[in-house]
């Protein structure tokens, strides 16, 4: 508790000293450039996933005259994917708890939630690898047909995003453990959290549009 009080009084938020009288940063927007940049990146990433989801929807039933083979939709294991989706959804909750913990200077709790979030993300990725392996054994590879290429590209890109998020979470955990990130730099964890929540909302769309809607 003493640490928390000290952290709140001794350092200005985010480690910055250039606030004006109204606690706004001297930027055009009054907001930190790092956070604006992350939101701009997330906005542009919407375009990437928008294009990938569009491509999948337009080619989901196309197997071609020569290649044929099953489509991903023929092989979906909805109960299994539902559990994976739930795991990723709950990782968003643990992520936001990590952010609130560091804002309150509860460093041990923050580290615990960061690791929990990374672990839940890893479970999701493990599930995706299991799912992809199953599809391959059933004869659905990346180049089997147009539909499978679009499916693996979409879900693979999402998986890469989640994997990068796990790397960032573990890095944050290490930095918090070493004392490189304290309550005064809580916004760093918040920005990583924004990225993590984004991969969650992308999966919300993929799960509904790709897996559930017939």
């Amino acid at each position: 508790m003493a640490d928390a009080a000290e952290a709140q009084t001794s350092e200005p938020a985010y480690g910055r000293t250039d606030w004006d009288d109204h606690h706004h940063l001297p930027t055009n927007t009054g907001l930190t450039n790092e956070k604006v940049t992350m939101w701009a990146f997330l906005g542009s990433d919407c375009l990437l996933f928008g294009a990938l989801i569009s491509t999948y929807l337009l080619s989901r039933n196309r197997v071609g005259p020569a290649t044929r083979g099953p489509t991903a939709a023929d092989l979906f294991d909805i109960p299994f994917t539902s559990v994976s989706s739930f795991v990723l959804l709950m990782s968003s909750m643990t992520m936001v708890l990590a952010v609130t913990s560091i804002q309150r200077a509860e460093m041990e709790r923050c580290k615990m939630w960061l690791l929990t979030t990374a672990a839940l993300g890893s479970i999701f990725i493990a599930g995706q690898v299991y799912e992809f392996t199953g599809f391959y054994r059933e004869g659905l590879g990346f180049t089997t047909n147009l539909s499978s290429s679009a499916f693996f590209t979409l879900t693979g890109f999402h998986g890469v995003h989640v994997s990068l998020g796990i790397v960032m979470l573990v890095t944050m955990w290490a930095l918090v453990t070493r004392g490189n990130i304290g309550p005064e730099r809580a916004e760093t964890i918040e920005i990583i959290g924004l990225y993590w929540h984004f991969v969650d909302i992308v999966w919300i769309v993929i799960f509904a549009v790709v897996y559930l809607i017939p």
Partner: protein
Amino acid sequence: MNTATVSEDEGHQEHHDHGLSDFGYIKVAILLGVLTALEVATYFFDFGVVETPSLLILMVVKFQIVVSYFMHLKFDSKVFSYLFVTGLVLAMLVFAAMGTSMAFWQNPSGCDASAFC
């Protein structure tokens, strides 16, 4: 205190409103879990013609909840909302452009491109 000062104070207050308590976030997560269960229920039970609209509505609601509460967009500066919504709108335009292209493009033989022939 003039109007401008009041407005600045209100803006300051809004800027420092950082969202829910931990218990509030847990309640939001439970709500998201329930909505996901409803989505999955459409796989096990036949909802007829309302199935696809229901799934789309549930998807939008879940999306909105995560963005508003977990990503703090509801409590944060409007600048972030503008940046994000711009990306979303552009993504929808990409989908609309691709959809219309596939619907209208035909090869000289009259074969519909969407039929992959």
